[in-house]
């Protein structure tokens, strides 16, 4: 029983302070405090809540702050903090859960890594899907808007060339046919290049 008392008493610290921060009691089991210390100067945690503690704002019966990383008078600990507003004084209870939280830290790191990998995988899949859709759209545009159109133009030129033409007109149509032919070939090459996976 006495061992149990020692075990818990080393991990729980009770501090009493007046609303102005003046300490009236500290069990000093976790952090060594002096009665001349002021609660609001001990750590930014208390300083940032001074107005609320002085005026009892936002505190009904008690307030709980789990997992606060504290450093006071040269000692560090990860504590759960409970603050009770008593008649004329504040009762602050610190529970030292450093070991428990340090273990959780490793678990949290693993969780964060797996969560980020999952999101990375989802983004990669989304990227691949969007790329596939875009390439499909580009191929269709090349096929319908350029390649087929050019093939039709070549066909029309060939029909025109079967009519009575002057040698100059024939030469001009030959040039146009050749130019369209080279554009047609280039469009087909671009379409083939779109099938190539640049990411692989």
């Amino acid at each position, binding site marked *: 029983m006495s061992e149990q008392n020692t075990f818990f008493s080393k991990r729980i610290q009770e501090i009493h302070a007046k609303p102005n921060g003046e300490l009236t009691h500290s069990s000093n089991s976790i952090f060594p405090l002096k009665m001349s210390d002021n609660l609001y100067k001990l750590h930014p945690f208390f300083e940032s809540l001074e107005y609320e503690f002085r005026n009892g704002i936002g505190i009904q019966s008690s307030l709980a702050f*789990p*997992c606060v990383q504290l450093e006071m008078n040269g000692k560090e600990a990860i504590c759960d903090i409970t603050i009770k507003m008593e008649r004329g004084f504040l009762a602050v209870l610190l529970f030292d859960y450093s070991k428990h939280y340090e273990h959780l830290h490793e678990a949290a790191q693993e969780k964060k890594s797996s969560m980020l990998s999952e999101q990375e995988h989802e983004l990669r899949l989304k990227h691949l899907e969007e790329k596939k859709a875009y390439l499909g759209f580009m191929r269709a545009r090349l096929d319908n808007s350029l390649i087929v159109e050019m093939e039709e133009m070549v066909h029309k030129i060939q029909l025109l060339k079967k009519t009575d033409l002057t040698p100059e007109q024939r030469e001009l149509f030959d040039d146009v046919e050749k130019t369209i032919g080279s554009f047609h070939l280039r469009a087909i090459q671009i379409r083939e290049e779109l099938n190539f996976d640049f990411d692989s």
Partner: protein
Amino acid sequence: MEITKKVVLLGRYGVGKSSIARRYLLDIFEKDYLPTLGVQIKKKIIDLPNGTQLSMIIWDLEGFASVSKTRASYLLGSNAFIYVFDVSRPFTYGGLGEELNYMKTHFPLVEIKLVGNKIDLGDTEEASSHLKATGIQIEHFVSAKTGEGIQNLFQSLTKSLIP
């Protein structure tokens, strides 16, 4: 004279809240920094031009799915929220409209800064246009890694906090 202001860093897991705090307070960046559990509280004293000092106390909270799910005691007495999202992960700013509404409704007196972090990973165009379409203008895009925009963010915050 010293004025104390409580600033809370909010946002989802892995958006870089702690990295922003560390860049501002210590001017360092650690790629493999451990995720925050619970809350880390740090303080910075800022000398103001009128001779007073601003004690900016930064509460760096662990990531969460939504502000409404954050423990109320952590937010008690806040003067400002810095809501951080990751510009490279749309998931982290997808629900920003609802988050902003919640903060404005439940904390009407608290100054709110919306911050897009990790601009070193890509441009801000996608996040900007997505948020603009939902009526949200982002004032601060930063990189905790390179330090870009961090000083601006906190200077602007300081100006908003002093009377």
